[in-house]
């Protein structure tokens, strides 16, 4: 499963939010970062037609698409963004970096009190799909509602940051949350527990969508939500199909991020990724106005490359999520930093590329740092210089020096069943074997995989193949979730169980830094510091490929995130 909408995939699940530093970042530095990458979004140059009308079909693999803002982990630019507006949103254009822009609000928020208080003003004349006005109290209600245990499961960045929110159980039982103030119908003021420069980006997460005050008590609210965006859910067929029709109360002039070109959007669920690719490649009349939300698999990439028509309709992101091999630092010999460093040399990143997408070009370039492409302050460095095929001799040498001249045996490598995780893991397994490291694979269904990564129990695995796309384009979102001690277990993603008090302190200091340039430098230093301890082996920055039908227009992937911008897509007759 490879869709950014809901729980699941190796990559999709994490690619959800977008952070703050970009707000204060000039486009030029972002482009410079892209230039260093030397790979730009390729293929699929669609006409930038602004023709409205028609029916767009989105073919998705999973069978639940959640339109409940409290339960959704969806990106601002995918399906949820068609139905719900948030306080802020992302402006994603072809080849350009994502930009934090106002959505329901008139700007991206005004900080005061050193970043501890944030004030937003709503645009004038906004209405819900039921004709009632959208008020600040409705945004507040939507946020409060997300604290209700019955509606958990969405993005929770705000829950930890809002002052006095600990123990709050939602508006249905627990009354109002005082740290969200609505002095009038158009003003909303947030009081945070600590200064947080990225709050403007946090305000683009799904929970910042308005829910009419007092509504949304039912568990299936997501199947008939009150819309604020250009579309409303017309029919919802569980697990099969969702039809979105125009919300006549939405006005184009109030919205800079949504083109809202098609009259109808159909979300067709439960479509196996390979079948989707084959159908879209064949481009039969029914599929000409459709695009696939799943990544095009390596097998299908080969096929598409042999089909000139389909090749033109393939869109590949310029960069993407960091794929890495996690070394569980709490497990036996892996507690020894010298042993972990040997892994940096042992891994054959070139074989990993082939297993990922058939060719190095389509897979994405080799990674040696933790901060992903296009993030402010990113520095390119390589602490463990080795050829792309790895340096098994050097790895053996390091292992021998660490007291393991016979190599290592019986290490369990956890990998998700989804995508071609098993193939990638087998490539790693084969290359580690050359360096005398014997690894057993532990292939799990995606959710069982995450249960192991997120769980408290560190005895599950020694190595894990993981992937991370920052939730927002700040190094904060690259590093904190993966390497802070607080992110170990209990739902955290510190799969290496890496815990270094010095790094924790540095992360805290960098998060509190409001100045973007200064924060960027601090994060780059942390990148180096973590890599010295070698808790993970960076592998590649994975490119994502998507296919569209021949009548789909404006189908492109921005510099970030590595997903198409659903909000811009249209169809021609």
């Amino acid at each position, binding site marked *: 499963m490879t869709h950014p909408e809901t729980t699941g995939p190796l990559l999709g699940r994490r690619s959800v939010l977008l952070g703050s530093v970009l707000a204060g970042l000039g486009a030029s530095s972002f482009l410079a970062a892209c230039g260093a990458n030397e790979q730009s979004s390729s293929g699929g140059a669609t006409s930038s037609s602004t023709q409205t009308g028609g029916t767009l079909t989105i073919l998705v693999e999973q069978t639940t698409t959640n339109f409940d803002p409290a339960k959704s982990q969806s990106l601002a630019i995918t399906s949820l963004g068609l139905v719900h507006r948030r306080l802020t949103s992302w402006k994603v254009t072809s080849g350009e970096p994502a930009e934090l822009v106002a959505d329901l609000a008139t700007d991206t928020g005004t900080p005061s009190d050193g970043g501890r208080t944030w004030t937003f003003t709503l645009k004038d004349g906004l209405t819900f799909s039921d004709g009632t006005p959208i008020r600040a109290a409705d945004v507040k209600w939507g946020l409060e509602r997300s604290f209700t245990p019955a509606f958990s499961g969405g993005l929770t960045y705000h829950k930890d940051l809002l002052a006095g929110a600990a123990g709050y159980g939602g508006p249905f039982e627990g009354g109002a949350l005082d740290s969200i103030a609505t002095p009038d119908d158009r003003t909303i003021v947030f009081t945070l527990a600590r200064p947080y420069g990225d709050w403007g980006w946090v305000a683009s997460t799904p929970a910042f969508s308005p829910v009419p005050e007092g509504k949304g008590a039912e568990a299936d609210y997501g199947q008939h939500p009150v819309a604020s965006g250009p579309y409303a859910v017309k029919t919802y067929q569980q697990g099969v199909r969702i039809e979105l029709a125009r919300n006549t109360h939405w006005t184009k002039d109030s919205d800079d991020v949504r083109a809202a070109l098609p009259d109808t959007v159909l979300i067709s669920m439960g479509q196996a990724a390979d079948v989707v690719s084959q159908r879209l490649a064949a481009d039969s009349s029914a599929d000409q106005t459709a695009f696939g939300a799943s990544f095009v698999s390596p097998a299908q990439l080969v096929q598409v490359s042999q089909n000139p028509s389909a090749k033109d309709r393939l869109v590949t992101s310029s960069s993407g999520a960091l794929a890495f091999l996690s070394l569980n630092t709490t497990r036996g010999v892996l507690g020894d930093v010298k042993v972990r460093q040997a892994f940096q040399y042992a891994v054959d990143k070139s074989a990993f590329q082939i297993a990922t997408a058939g060719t190095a070009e389509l897979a994405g370039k080799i990674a040696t740092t933790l901060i992903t492409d296009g993030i402010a302050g990113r520095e390119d460095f390589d602490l463990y210089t080795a050829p792309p095929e790895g340096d098994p001799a050097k790895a053996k040498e390091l292992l021998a020096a660490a007291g393991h001249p016979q190599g290592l045996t019986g290490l369990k490598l956890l990998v998700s069943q989804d995508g071609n995780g098993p193939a990638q893991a*087998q490539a790693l397994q084969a290359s580690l074997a050359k360096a005398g490291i014997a690894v057993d694979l532990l292939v799990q269904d995606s959710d069982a995989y995450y249960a192991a990564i997120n769980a408290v129990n560190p005895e599950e695995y020694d190595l894990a193949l993981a992937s991370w796309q920052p939730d927002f384009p700040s190094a904060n979102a690259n590093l904190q979730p993966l390497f802070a001690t607080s992110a170990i277990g209990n739902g955290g993603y510190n799969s290496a169980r890496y815990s270094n008090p010095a790094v924790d302190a540095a992360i805290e200091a960098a998060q509190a830094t409001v100045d973007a340039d200064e924060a960027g430098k601090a994060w780059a230093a942390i990148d180096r510091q973590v890599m010295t301890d070698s808790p993970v082996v960076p592998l590649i920055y994975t490119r994502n490929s998507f296919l569209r039908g021949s009548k789909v227009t404006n189908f492109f992937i921005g510099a970030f995130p590595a997903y198409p911008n659903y909000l811009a897509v249209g169809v021609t007759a």
Partner: protein
Amino acid sequence: MTPAAPPPPRTSFGSALVRAVRDDRAATIGALVIAALLLLALLAPVITRITGQDPYTYDASALDPGSGLPQGALGGISGTHWLGVEPLTGRDLFAIVAHGARTSFLIGVLATAVSVVLGVALGASAGYLGGWWDRVVGWVGDVIFGFPYLVFMVALGAVAPPSIPRQVLLIVVIGFFGWPRVARVVRSATLGLARRDFVRAAQAMGSPPWRTITRRLLPNLWGPVVVIATLSIPERIGLEAALSFLGVGVRPPTPSWGRSISDAIGWVQTDPMFLVVPGVALFLATMAFNLLGDGLRDALDPRTARQGAR
């Protein structure tokens, strides 16, 4: 039943086997194919040593660098790679099929063995002893028949802790769900035999039940048991392949025909040999066992043999 029947000759089963394999052309083919595949499975490590091809080693040189597809015609068939290679990895397909045969046979045969041991023990004791034990065995069998075993195994495969080796889990679970069918056949055969004089004679002479079962009954149950076992093996092989196809069978990189078939789905149009090679292997194995099983049944049961003259 015919009165005063002597103990059936012990050689009947062996001669039936020979007869079946010799006289029935389909069974002959089945036996030959099984022998060939069994040899392949047993000798897989030796073959690997001779050819230098194992199912785990990546061979990027066998791949087209522009696509990750096998280089050359028919999925990369060459002197080095007799059946071509796997796309994206360049692993040797012949080695994968040979070692996959080990997985299939190991699980198919051992799971059947588990079913047969349990089924014979429970079926023979239930048929011979009767009474409450017979009812208990029958009822537990009913429960297992009511168990949606494929559904259950899919679910179990998803939640079973990784500390349990998959092959063992598959053998035990597949084997366990198979015993009631063996038990039913054995029970009814036992009921038939128990009424016959040579068994009654043993009973009359004060032979204890355990002794009567092992000495008198079991030797005469061989025929039906072997038939049902032979016909069960292809089902078990198919079940393992199905579970691996669904992603809850043996774990990679241990080769499995079912998983290779599943991997090959995406490649059917660009590299059909990747589907054909493991698919043919799986099909041949199941068909061979079915042909042999049918032949044995016909040979052992003169009634069906008479009708089933092919």
